[in-house]
């Protein structure tokens, strides 16, 4: 492999905490690796387990649920 492995991570973020935290990281200009793609939810408890499994099945390298 010539390129280093860069995972694609789906992030389910709660609108009220983790997503707000993501915004705050931006306001504070905290730098982090660009591998996560955020899907905003109204609560981390909204994420159906099937959705996580589907995502992984379809080839996404990681799923992170934050809330």
């Amino acid at each position, binding site marked *: 492999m010539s390129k280093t492995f860069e995972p*694609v991570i*789906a992030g*389910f973020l709660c*609108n009220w905490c983790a*997503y*707000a935290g*993501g*915004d705050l*990281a*931006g*306001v*504070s*200009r*905290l*730098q*982090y690796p*660009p591998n996560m*793609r*955020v*899907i*905003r*939810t*109204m*609560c981390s*408890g*909204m*994420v*159906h*387990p099937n*959705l996580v499994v*589907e*995502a992984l099945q*379809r*080839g*996404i390298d990681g799923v992170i649920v934050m809330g």
Partner: protein
Amino acid sequence: MVECGRHLNIEIHTLSRVTEVLGKKGNFNVTVEQKPRYVDMDKCIACGLCTEKCPKAVPDEFNMGVGKRKAIHIKYSQTVPLKYAIDSGNCLYFLKGKCKACEKFCPTGAINFQDQPRKISLNVGSIILAPGYEPFDPAKADIYGYGRIADVVTGMEYERLLSAGGPFQGHLLRLSDNREPKKIAWIQCVGSRTKNCGNLYCSSVCCMYAVKQAVVTAEHLHGDDVSQTVFFMDLRSHSKEFERYYEDARSRGVRFLRTRPHSIMPGKNNIGVSIEYTNDRGQRVEEGFDMAVLSVGLQAPPDALELAEVCGIELDRYHFAVTESFNPVATNRDGIYVCGAFQGPKSIPRSVTEASAAACVAGRSLLEARGTLTLEKTYPEERDVSGEEPRIGVFVCSCGINIAGVVRVQELAEYARGLPSVVHVENNLFTCSTDTQDLIAASIHEHRLNRIVVAACTPRTHEPLFQDTLREAGLNAYLLEMANIRNQNSWVHQKDAEAATAKAKDQVRMAVAKAALNAPLSRMTVPVVQKALVIGGGIAGMTAALEFAEKGYPTILVEKSDRLGGNAWHIGRTARGEEVRAVLLEMIPRVENHPEITVLKRAQVVSVRGSVGNFVSELEVEGKRRTEEYGVAVVATGGREYQPEEYLYGRDPRVMTHLQFDEELRERAPSIHKARSVVFIQCVGSRQPGRLYCSRVCCTHTVQSALRLKEMNAEMDVTVLYRDMRTYGTREELYFRARELGVLFLRYSLASKPSVFQEGGQLCVEVFDHVLERPVRISADYLVLASAILPNDIQGLVELYKCGVNEDGFVNEAHPKLRPVDMTVDGMFVAGLCHYPKPMDEAVAQAQAAVSRAAVLLARERLQLDAVKSYVTERCDGCGLCLDVCPYMAIRLEEYEKEGKVHRRIATDKALCKGCGLCEATCPKEGVMVHGFTLDQLRAQVNALVEAL
């Protein structure tokens, strides 16, 4: 703040001051002088080019002079209005007659050097003064070498050093050599509690801001050689949750030294400092620190005098506005009110509370003119997009250089053009600017767009703005989707344009995929019952009931005992010396006879249904039940005095609590007069494990009683055994006076509490004296225990309303700083002792504030709920799994008949549902979904992401 800038009925006049106030309550004519801004507010798009090109740099006052700004500037990046201004005192054009760089580079031609001062004439019914405070400036008095020693800074400067938006972007550096300081000292009471600078009062907030800074510093810096030391006189953590915060700081290793340092000398080469102080053994110590922070006090703003004169209001000797305990936001001039630190030094929550209280009384007197000058926004009818193929418009924001500086926006826009269903793409410098809103609306009409994707900042702040734009263009607000390519992309991947652009493409693709599935949603509105319920008939509850009633809202006042008044019956005078009973005797009949107030004694709430705007409760009144509907509720259930088990209380009649001693003073003053020695013990039941909070009022109460005794008989020995005296604000004057009159203050620590015993019929108190380093024995004719304030038990209410109390049993607020009287349950508000121990004036202000906040809800008449709610699909088979997980009990099971058979399925209560979607995640059959976040929509986003692989 942003809300304020966008509010249809708030007009912000910046760079302005009041020069004349004529007329009277209900009808004032105010003249305002507005300084020129030299920037046309309509044209300025806040792109920042002018600041970039401006050659003149000056110390930035927002950063307390640490760091620079330009002559043309905005105060800070989130300021409202976000429009630049030229400071003519520093601008080269105004100083030397040439430059005009900003004018040359401004892309919109907003610069106007011909701008003139303006006089504005305003006609208003009430005036609220909230000019705030000024931090004490230690440079003027050459205190602790401030101004000469680089590493001595004020608390406010230190805030800026810590701040992510500050001069060092949140990386803590000291000013002498720009290196990270390891060992930092805080010095309390600089410009407070001292005769030297004339500020005898306690500034109330500095102890806690110093503790906070020490804790935050510990989070910033790491390593074994890092330490924080606070030099203090009395540590005053007298507000809610502060004692716990202070204890937590101590357990984290912040060092607290009770001594006032003598002086600060510069370190070697003027780097660092050396502090000289006397330690608790009386030895002189010189200790080196990397940096010293002076916890400067709060004082009245310099323009307070002028403002007071123009408005004709009375100030005290410190130039704070004078008010009364039972009318805490009213000045001596009718129709003019004050709030915040202008009335006396105070913390943020108290300022916010008073602000709402001022709004309450300012509005009360203008009742008949309510709604006459306000505008209500109207929207065109929504276009019906059902059955239309998705036609998506994508708007990519450059956000000046915020996004465009990292993400290649042109490339992103081109990419978006190729996505399915996208028919129109635009790139804007600022998608949020007012002119772009018109552009978006025009595009919606021109291209018949029926879904909009905005790739810009976060929906958390800007979704309402764009939703509004859609509504104005005749589209349903929920046809909008945002891609957060600023906060969660360009700002956090500043070094990697390639990856950031790739990520932005993914974000836009995912947003487009979701948007295609967005459906128009309607917001449910519910009528608001124009009635209030007040629980608790003490001073706070009665004040709230009266305020509601004066605003014309029928109010039910529920009191569990058989008389109104609560604890106020037992209290002598307020800290300002007002007689409490006289007020009570005047207030109670006013409440009982008010046509809008129904007083229910021996009553309690036994059931609650519904939610904000539509509560329905069963009340039990003298054993009988009645049902009441109301839109809002104020909880003012009060507190009570702790009945001590220690210090021979209840076993020796000479030992009494404060309230009993007040009674004694009232009824049997002559026998007290004869006493030779009276001892007070502070913090009985407060500030100890199990009750880790300060009861806030007892120090002032003790000092007041001690003064009363000394005035009765100057020969009497009055001794106060205390841990920290917490006579905050101008109450400090009482403490000062008590010491002048010879009241003896002896400190004890939690570890060595005083002991009380009888010896030959004598009541004796023994305490370990820290100065003499030996036990001291005092005989006492009376022993007064400053016992704690406990909240009344409201477990029943907590369960009924599902509201929260903290571990001490005090009602939780929605946000400790910004929503201090709103409870965690919408439509419920809190006032008085059930929230936290507090003196009379604060309880009254809080009650008025609660009514102000509640009146905002009642004023709407119909309440609009967010459309993001759960709904039941065809696939629900009534298994009921979701019932248990719903945290809001918004789901119930119901039966229905179909083809002669009984089926079961769930039904959701839209008023209760908060759209959290726990049901959606729990349901095994996709039988329940949340609008706007359906499984299909989330799946579409995942699928769109997969496409990138």
